């Protein structure tokens, strides 16, 4: 397989706050060198040194710093990371919206980037006119759009409104139409930034399916940024975790998502609760008595955690399971008094026994939290977040929260037989 994208020592610098060096003469000099002569900014080197020596005083940040990677043709790569990690900057550079401060990107094939749905849509123009406008902006030729018009309209599902100005569209219809145009781009490389966050569930699924087709059936290269971890897992084989402008992990998507949650954990566990000689700490989560956080979706299970504290009263204990979207799927709380410990002084183990939850198989994260809101001492402790993998049969169509085994039955009634007889 050949390489479709190669990124070499790619860096991008941004200046925070006021843009300009401060004085007109320096500004003019800089302007002359960068804009007129086309040389890179001479003040960058200064900034870099500054950044290392006195961290925090420099108003220059590296949004991306010395990134290197290669992507093979036909690969689907999910890029994950927290807000501000540099994901979007990377996509912007790849799609030529802005240019790198240093380093280079080499590409093979046409690039179509979808950093936003409906770029350039004009509210006064009709749906049809906007298909042409948006398609051209994304780099399609008119002939190409002519050929695909029916397909695009069909995919969008807004045939009825196609000659109405898009300002009269509902926002959902607007997004449908816009994605439909983008989905029909013919390019070897497709770059998609968090566009699935919009639109209803049905349409999201359609988009995901379309993107899967693009990657798997057509053998095109897909780069996908999303905060939706299950979409990443569904779509991408390879994952790239970006943190403060650097690629910190480049591996299969599953372990990348796991690493993301691991890094996302809240660090203030024990330190936070230490005050006035009191402390509170929770650690060591185990599932069914082990460190393997895997459960069958149809089995009951238990989770234990170690708790130590020093004269803690009126503690409330929480246990939370979140799905890949960060939504709580389970949220339980109880006061320590209710389970027989009014005062926590020393080491304890908490165990929570759960029935079979029938969660849709996938990756979840779970953690414990303890809040102590008394007048004399208030504090909280949060355990590490651990990934809980729920295994079980996957319902092909389902993105529902739970997926229990159910019994289906059909029973013919008196009237049914009569209806059948009439039909025959």
């Amino acid at each position: 397989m050949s390489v479709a994208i190669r990124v070499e020592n790619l860096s991008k610098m941004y200046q925070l706050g006021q843009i300009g060096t401060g004085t007109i003469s320096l500004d003019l000099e800089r302007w002359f060198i960068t804009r007129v002569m086309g040389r890179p900014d001479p003040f960058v080197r200064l900034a870099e040194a500054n950044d290392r020596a006195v961290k925090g005083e420099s108003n220059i940040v590296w949004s991306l710093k010395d990134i290197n990677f290669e992507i093979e043709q036909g690969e689907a790569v999910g890029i994950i990371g927290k807000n501000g990690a540099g994901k979007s900057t990377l996509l912007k550079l790849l799609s030529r919206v802005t240019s790198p401060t240093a380093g280079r990107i080499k590409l093979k094939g046409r690039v179509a980037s979808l950093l936003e749905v409906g770029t350039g849509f004009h509210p006064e123009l009709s749906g049809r006119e906007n298909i042409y406008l948006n398609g051209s902006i994304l780099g399609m030729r008119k002939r190409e759009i002519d050929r695909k018009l029916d397909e695009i309209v069909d995919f969008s599902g807004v045939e009825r409104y196609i000659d109405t100005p898009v300002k009269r569209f509902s926002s959902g219809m607007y997004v449908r139409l816009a994605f439909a145009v983008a989905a029909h781009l013919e390019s070897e490389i497709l770059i998609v930034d968090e566009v699935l966050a919009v639109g209803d569930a049905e349409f999201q699924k359609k988009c995901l399916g379309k993107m899967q087709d693009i990657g798997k059936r057509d053998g095109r290269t897909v780069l996908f940024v999303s905060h939706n971890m299950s979409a990443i897992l569904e779509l991408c084989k390879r994952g790239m975790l970006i943190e403060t402008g650097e690629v910190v992990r480049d591996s299969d998507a599953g372990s990348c998502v796991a690493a993301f949650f691991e890094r996302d954990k809240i660090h203030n566990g024990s330190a936070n609760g230490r005050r006035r000689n009191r402390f509170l700490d929770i650690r060591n989560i185990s599932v069914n008595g082990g460190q393997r956080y895997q459960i069958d979706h149809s089995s009951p299970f238990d989770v234990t955690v170690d708790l130590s504290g020093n004269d803690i009263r009126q503690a409330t204990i929480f246990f939370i399971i979140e799905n890949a979207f960060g939504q709580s799927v389970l949220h339980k709380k109880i006061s320590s008094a209710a389970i027989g410990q009014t005062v926590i002084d020393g080491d304890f183990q908490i165990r929570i026994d759960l029935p079979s939850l029938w969660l849709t198989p996938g990756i979840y994260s779970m953690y414990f939290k303890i809040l102590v809101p008394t007048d004399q001492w208030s504090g909280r402790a949060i355990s590490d977040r651990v990934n809980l993998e729920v295994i079980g049969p996957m319902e092909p169509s389902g993105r529902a929260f739970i997926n229990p085994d159910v019994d289906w039955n059909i029973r013919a009634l008196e009237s049914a037989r009569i209806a059948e007889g009439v039909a025959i």
Partner: protein
Amino acid sequence: MQNISDSENWDLVIEGRGPLFDLKISEVWNYRDLLLMFVKRDFVSFYKQTVLGPLWFFIQPLFTTIIFTFVFGNLAGLSTDGLPQPLFYMAGITAWNYFADCITKTSTVFKDNANIFGKVYFPRLILPLSIVTSNLVRFGVQMLLFIGMMGYYAVTGGSFRITWAIVLFPVLVLLMALLGLGLGLIITAMTTKYRDLSFLVTFGVQLLMYMTTVIYPLSAAPEKYKTLIQLNPMTGLIEAFRYAFLGQGELSAMSLGYSAVVTLSILLIGVLIFNRTERSFVDTV
């Protein structure tokens, strides 16, 4: 080993710095359909939900002509080289409006389209080019008004004549468009960082009009300012335009050649600065 063979045939290499002299003509050509789409968008969105629609294209030059005739012709009594006053002013206004529209609309192209530019790549030059083209439609409509006016004066016996120079008309229009485009490109590249310039544009264009032979003929210009007025590349173009359609004005190979050279130089500088700016303007705008 594979690396070596790969590096031979990349379709695109994105780097921080590019060649200084890169006009990107072929890339612009590849996106010509987009240019037409933008022209269509401008045109359709202009008159949608207006009652008079494209009629608005007539109203502005018509009223300006009436006001100029009243103020400069009747009150100030400026010479019109013996031409009917409305015809004289309208010739100047029609040509000047096209040039001025090209400048002012082009000069805000980065600011107005920051949203699109920040999300998708296409050769940025497409947008200024589409502005010049869609203004051409507007100019065409205004030319119809001007020709209608000529017809009226021909019937009522106004003194003017169409000369051979009318064959130069396409060249004159092209030069006006390119001069407006070139200046607009320079201004827009600079306003991405220094917004103050955009306030100067409307004002500056208006001042420039008084330095051009729009409201007075070159023959009536005071001797000591004449050189200054002739240094303005638009003067040669407007004079030639008026000579072509009305038979009055100073047409010379010298002045026209001068305008052409200045126009092409400004355009070249404009395109180069514009292409420089487009690489990273998203970060500064």
